[in-house]
């Protein structure tokens, strides 16, 4: 692997995330073994939060160093996209972890999902990139930022859905046990609703950017088609849940499927499309 200035910061950030994941599992393990005081479960959460925040700060340093070195933000190649997503997912999740303590045990699902990206980026070369002229546009910032918030909310929903499914495994049966499936289901879909708002804003900002940059607001390229199908699936999921009585575990599977589709939109599309967006030349 090529050694560039941002790599030590990236590795350190990933190490902090790994620490957060390990502590989250250890805490849940102890709690689920029974006989652990509430104070203990809250104290492990503080360390998990500290580790996530440390990871976020270290990844911000990695992004800053790369930005300074290349002269542009992390918008172009897969290495940059993964690095910026690791930062933004950690940032949004740490805020939710801090502000909504009741959801903290979801870290045992969320942190491994974040680490999927972490292990992926370790397999990539930190190749330098050049910013295409169509990227010098303020709508790009709005599009990217809103997309990151969207994926973060999707991730939290997937984390809660994962908890619901994980509880079917005896070892994790006590996970978030003060919240029955019905309550978790409600919370998970609440995050999907927030995801829908930010996904919609992301698509609007992206369409304005595309109109400015490439002379068309929508051309059904691989990324646009996949992003639209993701939006449609969230809308259909929320609509179906409001209209019919869907068992919470089926709902959890639907959330994970939607997260999978969103994940593919972000990170899978470059593998079956010559360029992420048609106009990127």
């Amino acid at each position, binding site marked *: 692997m090529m050694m560039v200035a941002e790599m030590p910061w990236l590795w350190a950030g990933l190490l902090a995330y790994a620490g957060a994941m390990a502590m989250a599992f250890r805490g849940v393990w102890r709690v689920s073994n029974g006989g652990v005081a509430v104070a203990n479960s809250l104290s492990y959460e503080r360390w998990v939060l500290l580790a996530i925040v440390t990871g976020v700060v270290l990844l911000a340093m990695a992004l800053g160093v790369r930005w300074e070195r290349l002269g542009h933000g992390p918008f172009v190649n897969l290495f940059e996209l993964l690095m910026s997503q690791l930062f933004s997912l950690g940032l949004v999740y740490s805020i939710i972890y801090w502000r909504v303590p009741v959801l903290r045990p979801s870290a045992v699902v969320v942190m491994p999902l974040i680490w999927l990206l972490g292990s992926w980026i370790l397999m990539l070369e930190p190749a330098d990139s050049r910013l295409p*002229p169509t990227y010098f546009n303020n709508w790009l910032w709005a599009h990217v930022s809103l997309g990151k918030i969207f994926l973060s909310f999707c991730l939290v929903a997937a984390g809660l859905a994962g908890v619901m499914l994980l509880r079917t495994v005896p070892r994790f049966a006590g996970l978030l046990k003060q919240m029955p499936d019905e309550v978790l289901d409600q919370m998970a879909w609440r995050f999907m609703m927030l995801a829908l708002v930010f996904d919609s804003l992301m698509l609007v900002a992206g369409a304005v950017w595309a109109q400015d940059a490439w002379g068309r607001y929508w051309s059904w390229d691989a990324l646009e088609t996949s992003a639209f*199908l993701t939006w449609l699936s969230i809308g259909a999921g929320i609509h179906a849940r409001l209209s019919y009585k869907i068992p919470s575990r089926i709902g959890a599977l639907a959330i994970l499927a939607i997260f999978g589709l969103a994940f593919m939109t972000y990170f899978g599309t470059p593998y079956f499309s010559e360029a992420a967006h048609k106009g990127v030349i």
Partner: protein
Amino acid sequence: MRRLASTRLTLLGMAWLAVSAGLSYDDPAATSVWMLTSPMLFLALNLLAAIITQPGINRRPGLLVFHIGLFGICVLAAVGRLTFFEARFELGQGMPFSTEMLADVRQGPWHRGALEQVNFTQGFYTVDYAPGLTRGSTRSQVLLPQANGSVREQIVGDDKPLLLEGYRFYTSFNKGFAPVLTWTPETGEPVTGTLNMPSYPMFEYKQDSEWTPPGSKPIKFWLRLDTGYTKEQSWVLDGRKAKGVLVVNNGERRVELAPGESVDLPGGKLRYEQLSTWIGYKIFYDPTLYGLFISAITAVLGLAHHYWRKFASQPLLATPERREQALIGNRTVKA
């Protein structure tokens, strides 16, 4: 009306739209325009019926605004597909725009525009390049005749289109050089025109073309350029600073011409007037653009308002104290 507002029909419409989106992937113009417009209009009807008949929607302001916004998007997106216009063309320096030069024309069956009334003339252009031939900003000068007889100059390029009669003209990455030639036949009037060479610098080493004068044999041309281009350093492509020698070969003779020079060939005299440039444009027309934007923003604001009120009335267990209470309460219940 209530049947039309069915939530089952909504899910059916969504599934239909998803299939249509999948089939339109990569090239919607290759499929029928109704492929996408049919499910959109179907969903628009379903939305309209739901807005009118469902109290769950029309008595909640946020949800009502959201559904009205969605209805607007469905209708406008469908109208946009029926009225859109897209095309490409290449325009030489000093040449006025004409609809005769359009290529790759695609348009909706209901397109009614005033493209014939568009009037502008191409000026110079410059393109920035970073080391390694990485393209940067494009600046293209267009000259717009005014009602009082004067000419207004405007610089367009990249994300700054030229807006005329509702049409948006975007510069493309395609651009190159064009020698201006005058052919004076042995009998008849001289004719002046340009010969667009392949895109530059993409085809830097393939600057050749062919032209057959009326009643004569084909002539091959090769343009040897000096543009100051270096791969290692930043560089600005500027036709006004470029120089080019035109190599003319009619199969019998090979002659090199500088601007202003001429050569006698069988059937007439060819004069290389000057080196000029051409640049590619893409035209986009969709009368629903602004309406779509307003509808989309309205829908999102309505949805955000609805969720804001919904979540405010059912807050999450946000504070550590409440979290602790929940945990202790749970243990107490268990005990």
